């Protein structure tokens, strides 16, 4: 059942990626796309497919997967289906660092350093959240609340920077904050890949611990799980994934919140299955959001984040309502 679900999701993702390859401001018939993919020539179509659409689609998939996995891990750590990297301030820390970079340092450094700035921001805010909520270990609800507080402060900092910087820089920063995959390149894909390849196996290795902790700290302790260590390692995975996604695509909100929910309804809350399923669902969400942004309002190329929030937020409200009634 669950294996076939994952397989089905993968097939769906592949088909959607194919669809996305064909569509754009310059629609391409599937056969021509296939031709350009298998036998690249020195033509416009090859350029559009290989240099414009393919990297963008690949980045959308990776970013969506990273955000969704970060959310799935975080929700299991704090045992709350409402937590996500954007709620507890990891994303907004990354955003603050990125806007700081855009507003103050972009004249001195090239934009290639932006991902590193964002990653550093995510790391610092995660460390702050952990240290501020530390009180004889980490209590999940305290972690969430402190994160919310920190998110408010970093959000205020971001607003301040946008208000005081000049209009052009402010607008760039704002588009970035909304979350956009515009002008994605292969080196972005190469840049984000390691940040998925390292945390994912670690997190899968700790999946059993996470499942045990989901039953409550005392049960997990009884089963011999080193709670604090496992929690910290899983948290580090979540931060790395969320930070990487934000670094390369800006503040796409709601993916980390809704993708794990959807995946959990398909495969259940067992971590070893939930993480891959979430990754696929998240990738699908971002892929379609970006596709909509590219083709729905031509010639405008709108940030994917608008559509993620536009579809994700009402859907999230619906989900929340459903889960309440079921319990």
């Amino acid at each position, binding site marked *: 059942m669950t294996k076939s679900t994952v397989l089905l999701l993968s097939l769906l993702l592949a088909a959607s990626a194919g669809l996305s390859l064909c569509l754009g401001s310059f629609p391409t018939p599937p056969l021509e796309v296939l031709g350009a993919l298998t036998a690249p020539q020195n033509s416009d179509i090859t350029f559009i497919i290989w240099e414009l659409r393919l990297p963008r689609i690949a980045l959308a998939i990776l970013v969506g997967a990273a955000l969704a996995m970060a959310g799935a891990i975080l929700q299991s750590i704090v045992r*709350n289906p*409402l*937590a996500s990297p*954007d*709620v507890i301030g990891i994303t907004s820390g990354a955003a603050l660092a990125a806007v700081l970079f855009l507003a103050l340092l972009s004249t001195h450094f090239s934009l290639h350093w932006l991902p590193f700035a964002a990653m550093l921001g995510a790391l610092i805010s995660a460390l702050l959240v952990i240290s*501020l*909520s530390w*009180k004889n270990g980490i*209590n999940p*609800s*305290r972690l*969430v*609340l*402190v994160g*919310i*507080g*920190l*998110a*408010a*402060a970093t*959000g*205020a*900092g971001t*607003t*301040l920077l*946008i*208000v*005081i910087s000049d*209009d052009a820089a*402010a*607008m760039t920063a*704002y*588009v970035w*904050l*909304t979350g956009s995959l515009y002008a994605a390149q292969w080196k972005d894909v190469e840049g984000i890949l390691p940040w998925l390849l390292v945390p994912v196996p670690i997190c899968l290795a700790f999946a059993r611990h996470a499942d045990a902790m989901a039953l409550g700290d005392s049960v997990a302790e009884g089963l011999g799980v080193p709670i604090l260590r496992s929690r910290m390692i899983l948290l580090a995975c979540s931060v790395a994934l969320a930070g990487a996604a934000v670094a390369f695509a800006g503040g796409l*909100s*709601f993916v980390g*919140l809704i993708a794990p929910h959807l995946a959990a309804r398909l495969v259940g809350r067992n971590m070893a299955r939930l993480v891959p399923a979430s990754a696929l669902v998240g990738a699908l969400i971002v892929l379609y959001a970006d596709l909509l942004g590219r083709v729905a309002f031509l010639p*405008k190329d*709108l*940030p994917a*984040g*608008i559509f993620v*929030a*536009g579809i994700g*937020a*009402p859907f*999230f*409200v619906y989900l*929340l*309502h459903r889960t*309440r009634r079921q*319990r």
Partner: protein
Amino acid sequence: MLNSRTAKSLGLLLAALTALAAFFASVMLGTTDIPLASLAAAVHHYDPTQIDHIILFTERLPRAVIATLVGASLAIAGALMQTMTRNPLASPGILGINAGAMFFVVVAVSFLPLRTPADYVWAALLGALVAAALVVILSRGRHGELSPLRVVLAGVAVTAMFVSFSQGLLVMDQQSFESVLYWLAGSVSGRDLSLVTPLLPLFGAAMLLSALLVRHANALMLGDDMVTALGMQATTIKLLLGLIVIVLAGSSVALAGMIGFVGLIVPHMARGIFGIDHRWLLPSCALLGACLLLLADVASRFLMPPQEVPVGVMTALIGTPFFIYLARRKMTSQ
């Protein structure tokens, strides 16, 4: 904490004097300081050729009035919300009510020919109502109880939703960038006094109603049964208090955009000084809330001149440490 009636009365008097001083500071201080003499002159015979007088009446005075109104309203709204939900972290900002009002205002201003706060305050009230209803629906447990962490998370999710919608509007329609940013960041400046006065009855009515309900609010703290003992349905009281919160928070947003944390911090300060009795709590919240926002606004002029820091940013920076302190202290017991 002040215990006797005399001490509390003196405390309130002191708070009122501080608020008055903060009001005068807000009117007089800024990039151009206005001396007391020219303030008096401007009040007695206004002279439109004098720059001091123009600044005073078009910029400083409306600003101080808005800060006073909004600060007092948000603080009262926060106190009532904390009473209703029995949650120390409840406030119009945290629970998404400000964000709902803000989004509806942004939509109204972008798509409808509404230009003055008196026109779009209705949109703000509707938005506040929608957000409040959403949060209540989302956070109710099986037996209708509001679990504290869930309320806060639902509020944050609702806030995130409305803020990202507004950001989406902003990115799609870059013409309105400045104005949307104004709502998102929160500011008490740049409004004419004539735009404020039509909203005064709304603020006045809500505050009057809250004054009439102090006994019921006190009873509500002890439990729903106590309200019934006063001869009223607990649900009726909650709905009335909710209405007050929505009117106060919605009108505040229509005037000044999203200003967070005033509704969170001030009630806790007021409770620490005056105790939990709403007869003292609500007036002290009003005075201290006005003080806080007036002072935050004055400070925002001097933090990084010549730029002004949006006052919503100021309150968030002041409020966050307090929020984290509360989260660490009050939420550990569960």
